[in-house]
Every structure is written in structure tokens, then in C-alpha cells.
């Protein structure tokens, strides 16, 4: 792979990664949000495979495929199943409207760019220069988590953050050691399953997954 092509492919994958994150803010249809999350998983997989091909590292390519299986297939599948079971299709009025959300995303991108300067400076390669993109998605994920009111969109917010952290790991150091990566994937999968069970219970107890209902415990 030539240098120019490597940089182009990497930028393309990172661009898709960022775009899917931003679009989550735009859509209020829950099934579209799950689709976007799956697409982001594909972009993340592509990113890891491009890095793997560039470094001629078969192990990294295989890890990329594993990451893809989890984040582009298994997790979206689980969420789709939860969505069908719930019969809820739309996000209720989010706390922040769409136009404001997109503006906030722009501010978050600038913040991520400023914060990641020390990271880029340490080793300015094409890969680490894409770290601000990952951190932007992290902040967008956090924003989704605190402003959306459905259990499922909160879950997507958490998973966007998780995707972003995985992307940061691959962009900076070709990933954390394999044992840790396996542990992380397992933990994320289990967290999603736990939250799914809790959503079911929530529906049984509250008659819906609107998180505004969760206000029995307070001081």
C-alpha cells in the first residue's frame, strides 16, 4: 500500500466513523440509531484492517475482524432484538433539540481537537493525527447519554463512547494487549446484556423505558 493510499483509506474510515456518530444526534428514530451504530462498527473495523494491512500484521487484521463481529454485528443484533421486544420506535422529545445538538457537536469537536494536542505531538503519524476524531465521538457519545431519555438511546451513547475508546487504542498503539482487549470486549458485551435485562424489568415495573420515570430515588 502506498503512503497516499494508506492515508486516504485511513481518513475515509475515520470520516465515516465520525459521520455516523454525528448522525446519531440527528435521527430520533430508534431503529435508525441502531443502524448508524452498526455502520460505525463497520467503519471501526475498516480502520483497524487498514492499520493492519499497512503494518503487515496478520494478528491485527484478525483482531479487527473480531472487533467487527462484536460491534458491527452482535451488539446491533442484540439492540434490534430489544427494540422489537419493546415496541417503542421513537425517541420522545430529547432534552436538547436536533439543531442545538448538532451545534454542540461542533463545539465538542473543537474541544476534542484542543485536548488531544499533547497526544498528537508525542508522535505525529497519520494514525495519531486522527485521534481528535475518536475523542469527538467519545464526547458525542457522552452527550447522547445525558440528553436522551430512552433506555436504548442511552445504551447507544455508552457504546459510542466505547467505540471511541477502542478507536483511540488502535490509532495510538495498535490496540491494548490481547488479554486486555478480550476482557474489555467481554465486559462490554456483558454490560449490554445486563442493561437489556434491566430494560425488560423496567418495562415491567414502569410500563415503558422513558428514563424520566426514574425519579423515585432522590434526596
Amino acid at each position: 500500500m502506498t503512503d497516499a493510499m494508506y492515508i486516504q483509506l485511513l481518513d475515509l474510515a475515520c470520516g465515516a466513523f465520525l459521520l455516523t456518530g454525528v448522525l446519531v444526534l440527528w435521527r430520533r428514530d430508534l431503529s435508525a440509531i441502531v443502524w448508524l451504530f452498526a455502520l460505525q462498527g463497520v467503519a471501526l473495523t475498516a480502520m483497524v484492517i487498514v492499520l493492519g494491512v499497512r503494518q503487515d500484521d496478520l494478528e491485527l487484521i484478525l483482531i479487527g475482524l473480531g472487533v467487527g463481529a462484536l460491534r458491527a454485528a452482535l451488539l446491533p443484533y442484540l439492540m434490534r432484538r430489544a427494540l422489537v421486544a419493546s415496541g417503542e420506535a421513537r425517541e420522545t422529545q430529547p432534552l436538547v433539540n436536533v439543531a442545538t445538538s448538532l451545534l454542540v457537536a461542533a463545539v465538542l469537536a473543537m474541544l476534542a481537537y484542543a485536548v488531544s494536542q499533547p497526544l498528537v505531538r508525542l508522535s505525529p503519524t497519520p494514525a495519531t493525527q486522527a485521534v481528535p476524531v475518536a475523542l469527538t465521538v467519545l464526547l458525542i457519545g457522552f452527550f447522547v447519554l445525558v440528553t436522551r431519555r430512552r433506555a436504548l438511546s442511552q445504551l447507544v451513547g455508552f457504546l459510542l463512547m466505547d467505540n471511541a475508546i477502542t478507536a483511540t487504542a488502535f490509532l495510538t498503539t495498535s490496540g491494548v494487549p490481547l488479554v486486555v482487549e478480550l476482557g474489555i470486549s467481554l465486559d462490554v458485551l456483558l454490560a449490554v446484556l445486563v442493561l437489556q435485562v434491566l430494560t425488560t424489568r423496567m418495562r415491567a415495573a414502569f410500563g415503558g423505558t422513558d428514563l424520566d420515570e426514574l425519579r423515585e430515588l432522590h434526596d
Partner: protein
Amino acid sequence: MDSLLVIAPVAVPAAAACVYAVLGWNRVTAWLGTLSAAGLLSCAVALAAGDRRDALGGLLLSDALSAFMLLVIGAVALLAMAASPAYLAAELAAGHTGPRAMRRYGVLTQSFIAAMALAVLSSSLGLLWVAIEATTILTAFLVGHRRTRQATEAAWKYVVICSVGIALALLGIVMVHYAGTRAGIASLDWVVLAEHANRLDPGVMRIAVMLLVLGFGTKAGLAPMHAWLPDAHSQAPAPVSALMSGVLLSVAFYAILRVKVIADLALGAGFARVLLVVVALASLAVAALLLLGQRDYKRLLAYSSIEHMGLVALGAAIGNTLALVAVLLHILGHGLGKSVLFLSAGQLHQALGSSRIHAVRGLVARAPLLSGVFALGLLALLGLPPFSLFASELGIARAGFAAGLGWAIAAALVLMLVIVAAIGRQGRRMLLGGGPGEAIALPRSVAVPLVAGLAGCAVLGITLGPLHSLLQAAATIAGATP
């Protein structure tokens, strides 16, 4: 043989969890949890007596600091597990739980203890992270054990907030790994990172340390990420609250202690100190504010945990030998005292069916033993002698004035005064006042751990005995400055 002793603290409760999965919770297996906790405690004693040992090709490592944390886990687990059979029997009699839920309780509590043991024994930042995240997943259903609306709400908030917090810690680890790789160390091992800490890039490490303190601080219940704690601790079954408050918070704080060693070497002592002083004072302030008007005795205990983790963070910020010895002693004393209180609060809750403070009146007349234990536990938490929290708080204060952090100690003392007044007033209302109602019986199998926990806390306040050298060694490992 040596490596077996390091694996055992994780393997014993894990095996007990498997037995529960197969046999369920019944009259006989109910005591298996207590047995496994006793086994864990004896392994901890053996490890504390010996030198550094490792196992599984260096994946697990036991030094004085891990051995001390294992002692805390073992002691609190023993109290909580000994009180569990009577607690679950009463829940079953009241129709709050069934055989399936009890089997799950057995499996999850034992796996939870195993995960905590793994966290303090892991030699690398990565494995520690995995173990701490596992505790969140394992305890989620324990928090939601009763399946009521409140319990479900608490469990949801708990999983979401703690997973996000711990995700920030993961990002911090990714950055440490990045800084390490650029400096030629592709390892997340504590010892290796500390050896080469001066080569790590300070710009990246600053972000990493901030994320790690914030992330593990979430799990340790430190402000501003403490919001899950009062809900989760007040909804979980009493023995689980005892474990979560008594040790899980400190296990998460243990991670901060390990990170601080590397941070101090890479960035100088000032950086982590400022961060920790800020979160410590914020935690004390949050606890003081919310304790003032508290109407629920379980939440009262939960906020008191935030207070004590704040004190622990303050001690860690000071960072000299006296302060760190006091911090570790405080962790043990708080673990014992808080689990006694949560267990007795559980008995109260079962007897009264409410955790409202105004539902409790004239406890002294109705339940002399239970109210005696509860009152002494409150005194222990407020830091009165002879309990060990008096000694450790005094140690932290003395060390703080000596290290030039007198202003922070003074602010903490003012906030603690507010807390003492608030808890004292609520405690008096519960214990005295009102006419006597129905008598509340305390099962003997619960009374024994309660009295034992208080006695242990009092003995530690008078003499450290053989713990003295272990604490000194652990403080040195935690990066004590002279």
C-alpha cells in the same frame, strides 16, 4: 506452592460460586459462602506474613499492599457472608425472594468477592480494569435483587454511571499504554511502569492521570461522580451493601493509589495531589450537605461512605508515610464499621418494612442488642475512640498539617463537624424518642458478626499488633514520601 497461595483468593470464591450454581441456596450451602470467605481471609493472612509472590507468569502479584487489601476483603466478606443466611431466610419468609433469586445471590456474591480479589492481586493496569468492570456487572442484579421499581431504577443508574466512569479509566489506560509504547515499554505492569515512569511523556500522562482518577473515582464513590452510590447502596440487600460500601469502594480506591505511584514519578507529586484534594473536599461537602436533611437511614449510611472515601482521598493526597498508613487503617476500620452498620440496618429494615428514619422510634427499648450495635457503629464512624477510625483520622490530620496542607485539613474538619452533627441528630431520633413498640429480635447468627466487627474495629484502635509492619510496608509500596 507459592503461586497456589496467590491464585487461591480468586479461585476459592470462584469455586464456591460454581457450587452455588449447581446446588442452589439451601440450608447446607447457605454456610458455604462464610466458609469461602474464611478461606480467603486465611490466604490473606498467609500472604501478608510472606514476601512478594507472583503467579500465572506474572499476571498475579501479591505484595504488602495487595495482601493488606485482601485482608480487608476477607474480613468484610466474612462478616457479610456470615449474616447472609439469616438475612435471606427472613427475606424468603416475607416473600421478597425465591429459590431462583437465592441461587443467583449465592453465585453473584461469590463471583463478586472473587473479582475484588482479582483486582487487588492483578499485576497490571489492564487486568485490574477488567476486574473492576466485572464487579459492576456482577453486582448489577444484586442491587436490583428485590425487582421493585426503586431497585430497578437504582440498578440502571448504577450500571450506566459506573460503566461510563470506568470507560473513562479505560481511556486513561489506553493513553498510559501509548505513552509507554513511545518510551519503549509496551507493558501495563505496575512495577515496569514505575521503573520507567520518568521516561513517560508528561503531556499525555497528565490527561491519562486525570481520566484514571475520574474513572476509578466514580467507582470509589468520590464526588462529582458519586450519584449512583446512595441509590445502589440503599437498594441492595444488606450484606451486599456491606460488601459494596465496606470494600468495593476501597478496592476502586486501591487502583487510584497504584496509579498515583506512577503519576508522582512521571509528573511530580503536585499533580495527583491537587486532583485528590479537590475530589476529597468535594466529596466531604456533598456528604455534609445531603446528610443534613436525610430522611432515610440506609441513604444516611451511603452518604457517610462518600464522606469516608473523601477522607481516604485526602490522606492519599498528603502522601507521606504517616498519612498512607492512616489511609490504609482507615480503609480497614471503615470496612468493618460500615458493614456492621449496613447489616444492622438490614435487620431494622426487615423488621420495620421501611428505611425511613421517622419510622424508627425508641429503638433502645425495643431492641437493646441491635440498638447497642447500631449506636456503637455510628460512634465508630463518627471517629470516636476507642475505634480505629479515631486513630486513622487523627493520623491523617497530623500528617496533613505536617505536609503543609493545613488549610485542606481545616476545611475537612469543618465539614466533618457538620456531618457529626447531622448523623448524631438522626441517630438520636432513631435510638431514643417515642414510646416503645414491638420488640425486634436479632438472630444469633447475625449478632455474632456484628459484635465481632465492632470488637475488631475497637481493638485496631488500641493496638495495631502484627499489622504494624504490614501497614508500613504497604505504605512504602503506595509511594510514601518520608
